[in-house]
């Protein structure tokens, strides 16, 4: 610490005075000099010259304040004014987890595998309903699959109404991939979010969330999948979203919860080691 410019030094002997950096007028002189130096540009050269001289004088005076030895003043320590005290000694706790000194919310959460399982189960439920729609309405199980592939597959736009009901291996593989990835991601999101809204998981996961993303898709479908946008049957579409949400939500909440680890500092829970990170432990280290 002694290397810092003017960090005050505590006098060990009885603490009746504290050394503080001495007041000085040189900084203000230098500041005024620099200001005049530039003010000369809008007034006249003499102002700049005066400012330059003042700035240099200020800098020299400032250096002599700290070199070779920093100037100090000793300030007498007054009687410490009172101790830290509190009138209300009682500590109330939120009735969340009385057994914990400080609770991290949510207290319990699902393992990642719960999200994966929920996503996969939802994926199956949604696929069943979508294929049912294909068979009942269009007489082809491949019809909805071809439509879905058009999201990422430009060739799908070339499909005619006649070929839309046929099997195309490329469209099939891409649709499966897209369906699987999206379902897994939404399932993981369910696993992470449902513990934070623990009261009515099925209402949130099965109804509210599908309604919200169906509304979003309704607005942007023209951009992300124009083919599906032309052909879509919204009733069946929303029904299959509900199927996904309800099944995924049910599967997730059926999994066993694990306790959120409460005492470990954030840095350790996040899996990296730091010193002086976001610590919550009671260690006595010095900086």
């Amino acid at each position: 610490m002694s290397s810092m410019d003017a960090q005050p030094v505590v006098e060990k002997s009885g603490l009746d005075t504290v050394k503080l950096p001495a007041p000085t007028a040189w900084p203000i002189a230098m500041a005024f000099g620099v200001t005049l130096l530039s003010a000369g540009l809008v007034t006249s050269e003499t102002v700049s010259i005066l400012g330059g001289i003042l700035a240099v004088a200020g800098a020299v005076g400032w250096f002599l304040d700290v070199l070779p030895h920093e100037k100090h003043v000793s300030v007498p320590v007054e009687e410490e004014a009172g101790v830290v005290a509190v009138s209300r000694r009682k500590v109330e706790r939120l009735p969340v987890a009385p057994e914990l000194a400080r609770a991290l919310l949510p207290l319990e959460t699902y393992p990642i595998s719960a999200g994966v399982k929920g996503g996969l189960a939802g994926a199956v439920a949604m696929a069943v309903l979508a294929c049912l729609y294909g068979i009942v309405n269009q007489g082809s199980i491949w019809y909805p699959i071809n439509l879905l592939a058009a999201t990422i597959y430009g060739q799908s736009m070339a499909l005619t109404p006649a070929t839309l009901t046929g099997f195309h291996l490329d469209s099939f593989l891409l649709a499966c991939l897209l369906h699987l990835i999206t379902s897994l991601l939404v399932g993981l999101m369910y696993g992470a979010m449902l513990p934070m809204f623990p009261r009515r998981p099925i209402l949130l996961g099965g109804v509210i969330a599908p309604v919200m993303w169906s509304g979003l898709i309704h607005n942007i479908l023209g951009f992300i999948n124009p083919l599906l946008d032309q052909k879509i049957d919204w009733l069946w579409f929303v029904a299959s979203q509900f199927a996904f949400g309800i099944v995924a939500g049910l599967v997730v909440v059926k999994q066993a919860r694990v306790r959120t680890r409460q005492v470990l500092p954030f840095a350790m829970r996040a899996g990296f080691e730091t010193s002086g990170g976001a610590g919550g432990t009671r260690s006595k280290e010095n900086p």
Partner: protein
Amino acid sequence: MASESIAIGRLDAPARQIGEILHDWVTTVDHKKLGLLYIMYAILFLVIGGIEATIMRIQLIVPHNNFVSPQVFNEMFTMHGTTMIFFVAMPIVFGFGNYFVPLMIGARDMAFPRLNAFSFWISAFGGLLLYFSFVGGNGLYGAGNAPDVGWFAYAPLTAKAFSLGHSTDFWTLGLLVSGIGSIGTATNLIATVLCLRCPGMTLGKMPLFAWMNLVMAGLVLLAVSPLTAAQVMLSLDRYLGAHFFDTQAGGSAVLWMHFFWIFGHPEVYVLVIPAFAFVSEIIPVFSRKPIFGYPIMVGATVSIGFLSFLVWAHHMFTVGMNSYANSFFAISTMLVGVPTGIKIFNWIATMWGGKIRFGTPMLFCIAFLLQFLIAGLTGIMLSVAPFDWQLGNSYFVVAHFHYVIVGGILFGLFGAFYYWFPKMSGRMYNDALSKWHFWLFLIGFHLTFDFMHIPGLLGMPRRIYTYEPGRGWDVWNLIVTIGVFFQGAGILIFVGNLLWSSLKGKFAGNDPWDAWTLEWSTASPPPEYNFATLPTVNSRRPLWDIKHPEDPD
């Protein structure tokens, strides 16, 4: 503030003593006195900038008004914007940082006390230089011209051919000079936070206030540098005939915009992150609960700081960039909403289930939360490039950024004033007057800035000095101007309350709020040396640990 006020109150004080006190303040290197100087200087300019705003609003109260000339109107909006950003908001947040960062981390002073004094004085002289233009500046319309090129001073308006005389140079030099002080103070804050924390205070146990000031100081270093570079380039253009921004000689006017806004956008965060810092200290204490999600708050602050350097060209959608640039800046701007939203949720979660005390600091913080949320929402609207093409440079934009700066930053600042006034002066403010201030200012704010969105949506451009009647703008402009007088009344009560209470308020004691950070463990106002013995801390709430030894954090 206190030592000065006692001296003024004593009528038999000899003149020599007043001179001595003045000498004390001019030569001081104490972070607390410099913090107060910053704050008092900023309040002075707040009143000046407020008068400029009032002049503009009176001019716009009815169509075809002749309260001021178009020339004066141009000077008013230029000086109002420049003053409020550079000579009110920045000095105030530097003042609070200066005063409280060392106290909160258990240090005796800033890392570089003399640099601290230098930084304050050069910033202050920069403001005086700018205002000297009202007397000494000569411009297009003869002598005594203040700058009139707008606060972002776009090229080619600032070129010698379009801006005769020296009024633009006053603007350039005023900001250049005060920028030196900003860099100095930012360096000082970073060094202080990183090197002078008391024993036991690891980075993870530092109050959020100190964390956020650290991030703010980093932003200042990175943001003020391009502004300074641009000012030097502009001066080279104007004095030595360089062509950086001269399109006819191969320069680029858009280059100025990039330079200005890569400063200008982070600057918003330089100002709002300290407001976050105030709110993050006040809400826990007034909710009687520790802050919710401390590590997430730190992470969100750092990521806001980082993101703020990736969004600057959202101020330039109307310039006509290519679609890749438009998309990039639209998306990066929307991303800012994520960490900001996290913060708002964390503050609400801190209040949830707490024993909330509705003291004046807390009232301002709650208003801050709601208003900052709305400001963020209109910000996201404007981040959609096609929406911005419609409303860019309209009063909708003016309403949006005043919602950020007044509804967010200024409300946070008022909360901070009332929260820390007992510490700085040793006396309590008058509670009834503070409530009057809150309600008058709240009503005035909403009258002015809620209704200002509407003429913007109806197509009223900013910076026009008058308008035709019958365009549907008249009644909205009338309401907007009426709101200004409510705000003015609130400000007068605020300043009066501070002055009166620092002389006559009842004594506050060390810890009037039953708070948890180190500044409340020392006397009010703190002695010159802050702490007789440097404290040692074990947790984020050192005073809680002392007050509740059976239940430490």
